[in-house]
């Protein structure tokens, strides 16, 4: 299932959080050879994890991490502005533009996990009035995004090969949702329910339930 968890809530999901930071170490440090820090616990964490971001996490049936991404509003400190401002031709600032970084998949992750995460991004846009995501992606993720049919628009890249890091913009509309739903086998209704599980049921539905 898809979970929406702020940084300060990860302590309530120890297995999920720990396996996420370990999978991030496996992806960004071991596989992609990015210049990231892995601590004594084997966790890949950076300064933006300390800013209490919102994580969207694909949880496997055993409670461990299948895939995840990290969101912060561009009104505060963000990786896209502080590290990729030149590629982005920024800084970009707006409460209606959030950054999406550390898109990570467990090495055994299914294509479903990637599509589910994209659906989660769509829920955030629709649920919170977010208009755009500005993201940092690795080359593999760009391919995966393309496969899910919701590909980001790349503004610029640095590095080459597996170490290539791209900055791009990502939006989401009804058509993307339908494509992703078809691809992932996750119905729009299911995706919405996972969102509501964390952020509450909207008015109209509560009214329908109580009526």
């Amino acid at each position, binding site marked *: 299932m898809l979970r929406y968890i702020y940084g300060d809530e990860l302590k309530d999901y120890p297995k999920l959080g720990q396996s996420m930071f370990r999978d991030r170490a496996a992806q960004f440090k071991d596989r992609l050879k990015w210049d990231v820090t892995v601590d004594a616990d084997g966790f890949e964490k950076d300064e933006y994890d300390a800013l209490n971001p919102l994580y969207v996490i694909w949880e496997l049936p055993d409670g461990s991490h299948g895939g995840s991404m990290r969101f912060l509003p561009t009104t505060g400190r963000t990786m896209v502005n502080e590290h990729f401002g030149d590629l982005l031709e920024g800084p970009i600032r707006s*409460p209606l533009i959030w950054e999406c970084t550390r898109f990570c998949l467990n090495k055994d992750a299914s294509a479903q996990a990637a599509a589910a995460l994209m659906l989660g991004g769509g829920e955030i846009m629709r649920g919170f009035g977010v208009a755009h995501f500005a993201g940092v992606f690795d080359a593999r993720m760009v391919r995966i995004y393309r496969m899910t049919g919701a590909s980001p628009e790349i503004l610029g890249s640095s590095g080459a090969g597996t170490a290539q890091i791209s900055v791009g913009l990502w939006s989401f509309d009804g058509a993307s949702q339908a494509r992703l739903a078809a691809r992932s086998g996750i119905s729009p209704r299911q995706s919405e329910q996972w969102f509501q599980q964390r952020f509450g049921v909207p008015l109209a539905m509560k009214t329908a339930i109580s009526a």
Partner: protein
Amino acid sequence: MVAISAKLDLILEALEQAATFDGLQVASEALRDHYDLAHVVYHWVDSAGDQFGCGTYSVEWQERYLSQNYLRTDPVISGCYQRFHPVDWKRLDWSSKAARALLLEAIEYGVGNQGFSVPIRGPNGQFALFTVNNSCSDPEWEAFAEANRRDLILIAHYFNEKALELEPGRTPEAAQALSPREVDAMTLIAIGYNRAQVADTLSISEHTLRVYIESARFKLGALNTTHAVARALSRGLIIV
């Protein structure tokens, strides 16, 4: 529609010009009247734990809220503190006895049954909350919130920018500079290009252009592109 947004622009223009905290109070009353709401409230807690608030709640309710320390039981506070996503009150958890009692009492003091709150994380641990509130049916409220949500999120941040600017002892920060791309985009819009022409001239997609415009709009404290262009011109940030 143009007239409506022009009135909002005027309210924000006055807020932008405000030299004292009274300007925040004036703006919250003007917004309440403009949107025909029960209340508009802005409240912040700085890094030292000091509180500041303005808005249209009655003095009696403010005093009652403080004296009862309702900050500790209010689901709006617990649902927004440390967060950055906007919250519709009906989506919060009001199931506890204390929360239900709080809402009933609030209604007695003239607070509406519907609310939309925007949490804001400022610099150095500053936290603020901007709330619009009304008494109406669920479908009416949902329609209002859906239609105005993005404007309200922007307005919430404009309140906070002003409050930060007025904070005693704070060294004023340089106005948020437009990036070169944002300057290009706003300049071309100012001389009358449509979006497709601007995107074409800058060799970027229309999607990317929308992001630059969105960002420029926020930095300029505006709700719409027309207002943003006017501000960029009047501040001398673009020259046509």
